């Protein structure tokens, strides 16, 4: 994965700080909004449902503003990298397949998806020979099958392959 600009910042800490603070503020605003809908005052049998969360929302908004100001104040000094381009590529090269894997579980069941996922990693990032890839990825799923379905009797999502093998 060599290439130019690996050590360059994908984006800076300040940007990340600002986005995170803004995210917190948005969550706080949502909480306040829903609490106002539920009512933040009293009814005859005590405080209404929005009474407690309302203040939570207010504190979230307030502290996110403080964090935002702190991030902006740090701007004049240097702005180190939050994540470098090379690092981000590595992280995404794991995160994206993982998201695909989670999506795949619904289609093929967890055992087939896991075998494919482990195989992809070993072949793509580890550059292993095929027989090692097959042995580890299939072996891993078999071990989990034995532990969960046979030993602890906890059913995990299964798909067409298990149906074919009558393992359901």
């Amino acid at each position, binding site marked *: 994965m060599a290439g130019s600009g690996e050590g360059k910042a994908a984006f800076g800490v300040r940007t990340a700080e600002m986005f*995170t603070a803004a995210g917190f503020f948005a969550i706080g605003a949502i909480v306040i909004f829903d609490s106002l809908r539920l009512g933040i005052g009293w009814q005859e049998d005590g*405080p209404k*449902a929005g009474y407690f969360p309302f203040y939570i929302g207010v504190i979230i908004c307030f502290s996110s503003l403080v*964090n935002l100001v702190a991030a902006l104040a740090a701007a004049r000094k240097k702005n180190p990298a939050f994540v470098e381009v090379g690092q981000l590529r590595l992280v995404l090269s794991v995160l994206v397949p993982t998201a695909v894997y989670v999506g795949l579980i619904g289609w093929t069941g*967890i055992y087939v998806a*896991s075998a494919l996922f482990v195989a992809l990693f070993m072949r793509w990032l580890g550059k292993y020979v095929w027989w090692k890839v097959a042995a580890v990825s299939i072996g891993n799923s078999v071990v989990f099958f034995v532990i969960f379905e046979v030993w602890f009797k906890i059913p995990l999502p299964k798909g067409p392959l298990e149906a074919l093998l009558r393992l359901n």
Partner: protein
Amino acid sequence: MEEIQSLMQGFGVALTLKNVALMFTGIILGVIIGVLPGLGGANGVAILLPLTFSMSQVPGGTTSAIILLSCIYWGALFGGAITSILFNIPGEPWSVATTFDGYPMAQQGRAGEALTAAFTSSFVGALVAVIVITFLSPLVASFALEFGPPEFFSVYLLTFCAFVGMSKEPPFKTLAMMMLGFALAAVGTDPVTGTLRLTFGSTHLLTGFDFLIAVIGLFGIGEILLTLEEGLAFKGASAKLNVKVVLETWKELPKYWLTSIRSSVVGCFMGIVPGGATPASFMSYGVARRFSKDGDKFGTGKVEGVVAPETAAHAAGTAALLPMLTLGVPGSPTAAVLLGGLLIWGLQPGPLLFVEQKDFVWGLIASMYLGNIVGLIVVLTCVPLFAAILRVPFSVIAPIIMVICAIGAYTVHNSMFDVWMMLVFGVLGYVFKKLQYPLAPLVLAIVLGDRAESSFRQSMLVSQGDMTVFFSNALVGSLTGLALFLLAWPLISLAIARLRQS
């Protein structure tokens, strides 16, 4: 000496063949979890928690289940030291301070000495904390039996304010994370009135966010993503431990008795007040460096620099169970997961536990003594084996850990939605860690959110909305006062620093 009698009864419960076997299983699993990147005490226990559902159904099964899970916790505490010393990678946040002197020792070929010192002082720290638990927890529990809603709320308040005051992260980031936790806990059905809150019509959100999912995502997936940045290869010193090295180190260790005592005290205190094992280990390392005769040589491979953080981390990790058992307020994320386990098995943590579930409580306390002895034996004999796990290439171990996390998240409620949420929490965990947003207060707030809110609203009901109920008697007043003092501590220390400068 009623405690001794209860403890002996506890040993009777814990010392069955099945429970001792579970201790060994738990410790070995725990060390493996502690050694692997991305798996740690908190999410390791969270992932294995669903496996105990069926275990807890039989009579006495809850005791076996808690023994298994708590031993995983002890194992993870031991395991963190192995990676710190041999690979300079802290397997757990609380073993960061162990790398300062442990890794230089390993580089000088004194890995065996460092490992023995680390394991032995871990054991000492844990032992001191268990003794504290044995004698202090019945007292705290009987005291807490008199607590009403205002007292409980002030204890929760103290817990959360301690986080703001004691953590080394920026106070407003701690506050934001904590409140995010409360907001997530509020999602779903309101525990008092039954109204739906913050669900916005989504059926997935009806039951709210489960903190186990958050723990698996934040600590598991987030940690893997962070580890990835460092590259894919681990390079480490080789691990050899023979009887001679162990005995020689043991001969040397009594020299550091004062450091051990100081570190145990720091650890127990930080564990009970929910500072947690990580700040305890740093604090204890700093204290040891200041008081040691050759403090300026710290960082070059001093045994004392391994003894101090390890003793404190283990003492804090163990002592964190004291408030969890007696008050229902966990002192660390892992203790929070164990508390979640208790709730799932149908036990109500808190002072009543000591009255209604004597066998469970004392069985657990007895198992802490035994589990740490088992732990010391296992780690001293099996170090090369555990170090070998770290030599398994990352491209094999990382996807397997991801699969384990996914299975763990799924089994909590048998829901695919949870697996997606785990992924979201994973990305959040990665961002939060890089920006110094602390994760522990978030997890604790998700766990305690509902109960903190209930106790607050009940207090408000009693007093008809009058806030002075939190100062209505000496006990609740001093708890609230201490909480507010801790909350203001960052400001106070800032003011002191300013005054000193001028």
